[in-house]
Every structure is written in structure tokens, then in C-alpha cells.
């Protein structure tokens, strides 16, 4: 059976050209970038080339980028780095209630250390309210962190508007842009962010590498202490092949983004429309328009997400329920609950995320299979009769 991968928001396969670009750096060009000799300088040069490519993708200067081990590290670095470096100014952080665990858990860690955190609510579409942001600001606030787009429900937050509020209040502003960089246009100056997290494996690059954009002049504590790598902000010998792969992936994304946004938006809307038409008691989670081009998140009433996922997998269709990171916990997704969904609806959510190799035939196949799966599970659901 041909498998259909619709979980690109969890991770993407590496583009063949990215693999090709990386390969020499495992073998012949294996040098340590800190070494003075030619092997070292060759590796150093490749990192700086990659830095320019990734910086170009987000409208930044290359010296404002620090490579990390991924998006989670970039989030940790930004939040702890700002919180610790600016502790004398204040101990208050503002974030949203729909952030990725990498942000939420980091904020909770800081709360246990005596920091205060405001978790902004969202509306039924998952959008943060600008007035709530303004009202949450105190003279102790040192950081606002709101994600660019939700990995789960796909809603794109009003980052540029929050950026203006943050700038006026002279508060550092971070955004987790792991789901948007390489997928929709991202420009650090237009968004008005001081810090921005990204991850290579979400844009057809390798796992284990990401980056944090840090606007020049931003005061933050180094993340890893040790050598002089990454301008002393993140010690440790660089992941040279990974960084080279990230650079290549960024370069490819920049070329392909325009067409890809149009193609995926069309497929996304086909799938949303088809599912809502073919399955009753189904809702779209997240904003219908302010939405990632590749994200579909629906809740089907009376049925549970994992059992839908298992049935889909038996038919070769790979999707996700809630966040893939939390699939082993029993808790319903905090993101969907924040939208005001009931526990039943949150447990009954399904996410399809499309990508470079998604075809119209694959969308058709989901539209054929999922209604049958839901019908089968509803026939054994004790929740259904009470709604009849």
C-alpha cells in the first residue's frame, strides 16, 4: 500500500538537494570550524555561507543569527536568555495560552524560579487580542513571546501589530516562527521582532539544527557556556553538516515559497471543504483565513482522535491528533481547549499538514477514507445517542 504522509508540521523529509549539499561535510570537509588550518577554515566558511542564506530568508543580517540544535532550543534560549539578562529590570513575561510546549514549559520553569508569567487568552479562532497584550504590560515586563503561527490549529497571530506595541513599550519581543519560516514570507523588520525561533527540519532540512534570530543590541544571557562559537552566545562545536543543510533548505524555500503557498492553500481548502461537507457534526479548528497554507485541523464530534488516527494509518494515511509531541499524554490539547472546545471535541481533533509532495489524489483519498472511519467509530460511540 502506498502511504500518504500528511504530517509535514511534525517533520518533513529532507530535500534531495539538501542531502547532496550536506554530504561532503561528513567526510572530506569534516574540519572543526574553530581550527586555524585549511580544514577548519573550509568548515567555517560553509557555516558563514549558510548563515547568510538563512538570514536572507527572514530579512535579517547574518551576524544576528545564532545556530542552535533546533526550535525548542531557540525558544529556551530566547526566553531564559532575556529573562535572566534583564532580571534587574523586571521579572514579568507575557505569552499566549496556545504556545508550543517549548515556550509554555520554559515559562513554567521560570515561574518556579520566581518570575511572573501572563498567559494571554485567545478567541474562538485562536487569535490573541491586542488590547489584552497592552493591558498585560507592567513596568516589570521584560519580554513578550507570541508564536507566529500555531503548529496545531494553524492560526497566524497578529505579530506585526504586537511588535508595534512591544516597541512602543520598549519590551523585547520574541516569536516562535518554527511553522512559518520557509512556508510564508517572514521578515524580522516587518514583524518588529527582536528574537525569532526557527527549525530546519520543518522546511525540508535536517533534524537537530535550528536558529535564533537576535536583533543587534538585544541583551540576553548565553545559552551554553564554553568556547567562543556563535559569538560566545552558544558554545559547542558547530553541527557543520546540519547548518549547511539548513542553509540549502532556506535557499530552496525562498525560491519555491510563492508557488507553494498558492498550491497548498488550494489543496488545504479542498480538504477542509470536503471534510465539512461529507462528515456532519464536524468543525474546523483555528482561523479559516489567517491560517497556515498547509494546516487542516478538524474536530469530529462523538469520536476520539487516536482511534481515527489508527484507522487512517491502517489505510496508509499518516496524520496527527493534537500536537505530536503530546500524543503519549492523556491530556487533551491545551491549544484546542484554549479555543473553547469541550474535552470531547478536543480529544476528537485531527490535524493534516500538507507539504511539497502532497497531491490532489492524496486529498481525494482522505476525503474518501475519513468519512468511513468516522462512521465506523460513531457506530460504537456512547456519546452519539445523547445528542440525537
Amino acid at each position: 500500500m502506498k502511504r500518504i504522509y500528511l504530517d509535514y508540521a511534525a517533520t518533513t523529509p529532507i530535500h534531495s538537494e539538501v542531502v547532496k549539499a550536506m554530504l561532503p561535510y561528513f567526510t572530506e570537509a569534516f574540519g572543526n570550524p574553530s581550527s586555524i588550518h585549511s580544514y577548519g577554515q573550509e568548515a567555517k566558511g560553509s557555516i558563514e555561507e549558510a548563515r547568510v542564506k538563512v538570514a536572507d530568508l527572514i530579512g535579517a543580517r547574518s551576524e544576528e543569527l545564532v545556530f542552535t540544535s533546533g526550535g525548542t532550543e531557540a525558544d529556551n534560549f530566547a526566553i531564559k536568555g532575556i529573562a535572566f539578562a534583564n532580571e534587574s529590570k523586571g521579572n514579568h513575561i507575557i505569552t499566549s495560552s496556545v504556545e508550543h510546549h517549548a515556550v509554555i514549559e520554559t515559562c513554567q520553569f521560570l515561574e518556579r524560579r520566581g518570575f511572573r508569567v501572563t498567559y494571554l487568552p485567545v478567541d474562538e479562532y485562536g487569535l490573541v487580542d491586542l488590547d489584552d497584550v497592552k493591558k498585560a504590560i507592567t513596568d516589570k515586563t521584560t519580554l513578550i513571546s507570541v508564536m507566529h503561527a500555531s503548529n496545531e490549529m494553524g492560526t497566524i497571530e497578529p505579530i506585526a501589530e504586537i511588535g508595534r506595541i512591544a516597541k512602543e513599550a520598549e519590551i523585547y519581543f520574541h516569536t516562535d516562527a518554527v511553522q512559518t519560516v520557509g512556508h510564508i514570507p517572514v521578515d524580522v523588520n516587518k514583524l518588529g521582532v527582536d528574537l525569532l525561533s526557527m527549525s530546519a527540519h520543518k522546511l525540508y532540512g535536517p533534524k537537530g539544527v535550528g536558529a535564533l534570530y537576535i536583533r543587534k543590541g538585544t541583551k540576553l544571557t548565553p545559552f551554553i557556556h564554553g568556547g567562543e562559537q556563535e559569538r560566545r552566545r552558544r558554545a559547542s562545536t558547530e553541527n557543520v553538516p546540519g547548518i549547511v543543510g539548513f542553509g540549502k533548505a532556506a535557499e530552496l524555500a525562498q525560491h519555491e515559497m510563492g508557488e507553494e503557498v498558492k498550491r497548498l492553500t488550494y489543496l488545504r481548502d479542498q480538504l477542509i471543504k470536503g471534510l465539512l461537507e461529507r462528515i456532519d457534526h464536524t468543525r474546523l479548528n483555528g482561523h479559516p483565513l489567517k491560517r497556515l497554507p498547509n494546516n487542516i485541523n478538524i474536530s469530529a464530534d462523538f469520536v476520539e482522535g487516536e482511534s481515527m488516527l489508527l484507522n487512517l494509518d491502517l489505510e496508509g494515511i499518516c496524520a496527527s491528533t493534537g500536537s505530536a509531541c503530546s500524543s503519549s499524554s492523556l491530556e487533551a490539547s491545551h491549544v484546542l481547549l484554549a479555543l473553547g472546545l469541550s474535552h470531547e471535541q478536543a480529544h476528537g481533533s485531527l490535524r493534516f499538514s500538507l507539504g511539497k509532495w502532497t497531491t490532489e489524489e492524496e486529498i481525494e483519498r482522505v476525503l474518501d477514507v475519513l468519512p468511513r472511519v468516522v462512521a465506523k467509530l460513531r457506530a460504537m460511540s456512547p456519546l452519539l445517542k445523547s445528542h440525537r
Partner: protein
Amino acid sequence: MRDVWSLYSDKVMEHFKNPRNVGEIENPDGIGHVGNPVCGDIMELYIKVNNNTIVDARFKTFGCGAAIATSSMVTEMVKGKSIEEALEISNRAVAEALDGLPPIKMHCSVLAEEALKSAIEDYCAKSKRRNNECK
């Protein structure tokens, strides 16, 4: 390549794919209703009892793969058993009959045991109301 769902045993997947005894029993002698929406599992178990023997059992379940499989398995296990024998069925016995469950899914087998006990309690309460002894 590793089987995608090696999370679950073949037996669990078999019961998940083809659950036995799905549905309700008309005029059941006992109904068990357990679980809650917060944890994402709700089980309803129906039993028909004749001469102290469970002659039929059916279920309706909202829940994950393990919840459906344990519901299916427990209905299979109780059929033909006396009330006393049925009360002896533990969650571990259900899990073992399915060739094991992942640790995070063991609560599903607990739910199956509780659903069964709750159905039997309901049966006993009804019997007592009819002045019949429930052993």
C-alpha cells in the same frame, strides 16, 4: 521497517480493527457506565444475565485504540461466566488476554474492569429490587 503501530500488540490491533460485541442490548440486566471526557475515554457495558450466568455482553466506547480493544476483549471474556467468575476478571487479565498494553494505556484495562464491575453492580441492584438474591 518497524511496524508503525508496534505501539500495540497484534491482538490489540485485531480487536481494534474488528471489535466484538459492539452495540447495546435491549432491556439489559445491567449497564455499566464509566470514564469521563477529560481523560478521553468513556465506556458503556451492557450485560444480559440468565440463571446467574452472563449470556450476552455488548459495549459502546468513546476512546483510543486500547479503550476499544479492551472493551471488545472484556465482553468476550465475560460471556458464559457466572457473576462470581466475572467479578474475578481483573484489568491485568484483560491486558494479558490482549498480549499486553503499553504502560500509558494500562488505564484502559482498568476502565474495562470498572465497566464490568459497574454493570454487575447495576444488575445486583436491580435483582435486589425484585427481591432476588444477588450472590
